[in-house]
């Protein structure tokens, strides 16, 4: 590690530092620690809302989950575009990882929103523009993951997935702006600028914790996807020997 630090500063040094197992374990532990602290600030330290009371504490999990869903969806879009311009198994693997993480964060975040909606709106679900566009995104990414499973040829799968990812990404800005464009049941998105100063600290901590968790999930899932691509595209040794034997 020290040799790499000396030879290739700064990019190689950063890569060597990040790739070190103890740094990665430390990052996971820091994520868990921040998660616990953020949960404590949201559930205990922050004051209840003037109108929603304690129910509003769901915001500290729901808002960061949906934000990470949109961020992972954006990463999928960028990887999809990059793959079509410069085909690489790394961008394809990151696209697969980000799509799955989008689905996980989106499904849980939407469930939390439904639970928050019951005491505040009176219903778990309404066909409000924000909820409808999120539902479309989740169904679309479920289809995207199914597509990746059904196509056997890795190159064809990567191209089709990239095109599908770009089409799905059209929904991401629509979700973000839906509450401003249509002004329906769902309130305008909560952010540190729109909530009470006493709640800002807890919200920022939660966003930080979920962001770190997103990085952990993306990195682990990316490695799994990349290893699968390598296994698919590497010709087995036995088959190579067989070809040589036929040729000779």
């Amino acid at each position, binding site marked *: 590690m020290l040799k790499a630090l000396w030879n290739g500063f700064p990019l190689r040094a950063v890569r060597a530092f990040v790739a070190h197992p103890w740094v990665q374990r430390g990052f996971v532990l820091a994520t868990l620690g921040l998660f616990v602290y953020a949960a404590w600030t949201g*559930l205990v330290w922050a004051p209840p809302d003037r*109108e*929603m009371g*304690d129910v509003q504490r*769901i915001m500290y999990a729901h808002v960061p989950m949906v934000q990470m869903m949109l961020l992972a969806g954006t990463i999928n879009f960028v990887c999809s575009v990059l793959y079509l311009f410069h085909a690489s198994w790394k961008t394809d693997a990151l696209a697969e990882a980000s799509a799955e993480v989008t689905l*996980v964060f989106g499904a849980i975040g939407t469930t939390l929103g439904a*639970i928050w909606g019951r005491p505040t709106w009176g219903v778990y679900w309404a066909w409000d523009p924000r909820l409808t566009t999120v539902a479309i995104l989740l169904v679309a990414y479920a289809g995207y993951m199914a597509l990746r499973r059904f196509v056997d040829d890795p190159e064809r799968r990567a191209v089709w997935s990239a095109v599908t990812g770009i089409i799905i990404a059209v929904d991401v800005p629509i979700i973000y702006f839906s509450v401003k464009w249509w002004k329906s049941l769902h309130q305008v998105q909560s952010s540190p600028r729109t909530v009470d100063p006493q709640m800002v600290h807890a919200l920022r901590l939660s966003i930080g914790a979920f962001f770190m968790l997103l990085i952990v999930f993306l990195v*682990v899932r990316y*490695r799994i996807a990349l290893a699968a691509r390598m296994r698919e595209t590497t010709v087995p040794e036995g088959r190579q020997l067989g070809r040589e034997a036929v040729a000779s």
Partner: protein
Amino acid sequence: MNTLGTVLAAVGEGRIQGGWEYVKAAYGICWTGLSLYALSLFIRSRRSEEGK
């Protein structure tokens, strides 16, 4: 009387009473879901390293 007064005052302000069961359900689903996904990643990661 004090308790009743507090409740009535809160109702007068239009504040939702209680609601902790929703908060517990939401955080329970959130933590359980994320933990299960982390577990699935861990298992798949191990399988991937073994080359299965």
